[in-house]
């Protein structure tokens, strides 16, 4: 009689293949002690139907996970076609099943997988489009956050202001992509063949800001300097360091825009003698 954990591990091998090697053959070497991993077939009751009934679970598991990817990567699917997408997604699911039952979090590794997927090597921008779709998906589902209270920021004294740093809204994402993936993504989703034909695939790199607004997720192109400024600010670099490293005439305007657009939701002004104070 297999222990519950052994049975669940055996069923996992039946549904998605062996965790440590591709293919569906159970590998006895994975068993913790004796090398005698329980054979699921022997533990099942349903007799001659058990393999066919097991396939019902296998189909549900695979199709639910492939469908989760399909929902998050619609432009990738249109670029490669439904059959290609299904095959690629199944391979990804088998090699990287979700680490959580919160499926909106599933697929972070899919863009990297596609970039390394030999059958997709002919579409150099596919990985970039997938990265953009993943950022859009994250923006769509990220937690809500309160706007930054500007009156509290204004109340800081000069020494505190000189050390202030920010936390970005959880829905804000910044991407630098080698190809014009934003234009491709838009043309593909709009099914606009004329726009697609006009895109120079070598017309990158692009510097993108992806955020969630009242009207849904927005993807904007920034200039390289504005993107660098924003990226450093949003990853917690103190404002003085951002300004000192890349002085730019428009920095005031960028900061004002980020604050008014609600892209920065928290600030931190560490007091010099006793460490960081979170306000």
């Amino acid at each position, binding site marked *: 009689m297999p222990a519950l954990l052994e*049975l*669940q591990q055996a069923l996992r091998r039946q549904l998605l293949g062996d965790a440590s090697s591709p293919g569906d053959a159970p590998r006895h070497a994975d068993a913790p002690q004796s090398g005698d991993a329980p054979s699921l077939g022997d*533990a*099942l009751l349903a007799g001659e139907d058990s393999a066919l009934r097991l396939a*019902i679970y296998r189909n549900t*598991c695979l199709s639910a996970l492939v469908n989760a990817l399909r929902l998050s990567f619609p432009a990738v699917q249109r670029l490669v076609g439904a059959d290609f997408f299904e095959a690629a997604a199944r391979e990804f699911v088998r090699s990287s*099943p979700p680490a959580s*039952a919160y*499926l909106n979090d599933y697929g972070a590794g899919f863009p990297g997988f596609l970039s390394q997927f030999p059958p997709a090597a002919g579409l150099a921008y596919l990985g970039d489009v997938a990265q953009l779709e993943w950022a859009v998906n994250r923006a769509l589902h990220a937690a809500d956050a309160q706007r930054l209270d500007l009156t509290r920021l204004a109340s800081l004294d000069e020494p505190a202001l000189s050390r202030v740093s920010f936390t970005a809204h959880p829905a804000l994402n910044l991407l630098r992509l080698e190809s014009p993936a934003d234009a491709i993504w838009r043309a593909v989703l709009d099914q606009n063949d004329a726009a697609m034909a006009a895109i120079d695939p070598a017309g990158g790199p692009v510097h993108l800001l992806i955020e969630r607004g009242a009207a849904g997720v927005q993807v904007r192109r920034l200039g390289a300097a504005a993107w660098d400024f924003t990226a450093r600010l949003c990853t917690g670099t103190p404002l003085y360091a951002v300004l000192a490293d890349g002085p730019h005439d428009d920095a005031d305007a960028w900061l004002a825009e980020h604050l008014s657009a609600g892209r920065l939701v928290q600030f931190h002004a560490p007091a010099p003698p006793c460490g960081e104070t979170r306000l």
Partner: protein
Amino acid sequence: MSGTVHQLSEHGLIPAAAGIGLRFAHHEFVVQARPDVAWIEVHAENYFGGGAARQVLERVRRDYPLSLHGVGLSLGSAEGLDGEHLRRLAGLVRGMEPGLVSEHLSWSVVGGEYLADLLPLPMTEEALDVVCRHVEQTQAALQRRILIENPSTYLQFRHSTIPEWEFLAAVAQRTGCGVLCDVNNIFVSASNHGWDAQRYLQALPAAAVEEIHLAGHALRVLDNGSTVRIDNHGGCVAAEVWALYVQALRRFGSKPTLIEWDTDIPAFEVLLDEAAQAATLMRAVAAEGHACAA
């Protein structure tokens, strides 16, 4: 957010009436048209994030009694619960103050990997201990009682020693949790395994049953010519399941009853028709005068 708290208390409890499972396809319709539905249930995991989905749920919570139905906690995982998942669920429950919270007698996670299905448990003493421990852990984290739903299954394990209905009754008895009686699942599992659906219904602890689920299923012919019923939530409730529902109402009395539909989701009117059918049967059985909740 703070403005919603006052209104939440007006719709605390789920009435003994027919509700509808809300899916994304009908978000806009429900928010705009505010259809006449006694209560609404959603899959908790669809609202773990923020943004538009969360806004819809807050709106639904103001307009309807709301039940949260979890599909990913994996109460039967031998390796323990995913603490982050439980934390997210607890956060949603705190924010929404739902009338009911439910999960499944099944497992979905092993080796830290989520297998995206409600998988069958062997009905053993070990599995019973695991499920009871996790139900208690969940009830402690949520600071409330939860309901556990009987699963639909296609496989049974040779080393199972406890009938599923006794297993579910034992979980309720040991943990104090309630039972969500999915009548379609009883019918599907009974058909697939040759069980007596009536006996299953009679064996459930009536006092613990707080909710009933109804859904459609499909009959599939396997390659060897045998048939299996698939719980696909993809159609109208079957005639045999309506008949079993009447038996359930006679045994448990009028209970909150949910219409679930998850694949090939039809127009909302079709769901309203199914809910109306459930409401009609609930009234008819109540009028028989032998509804007994003992």
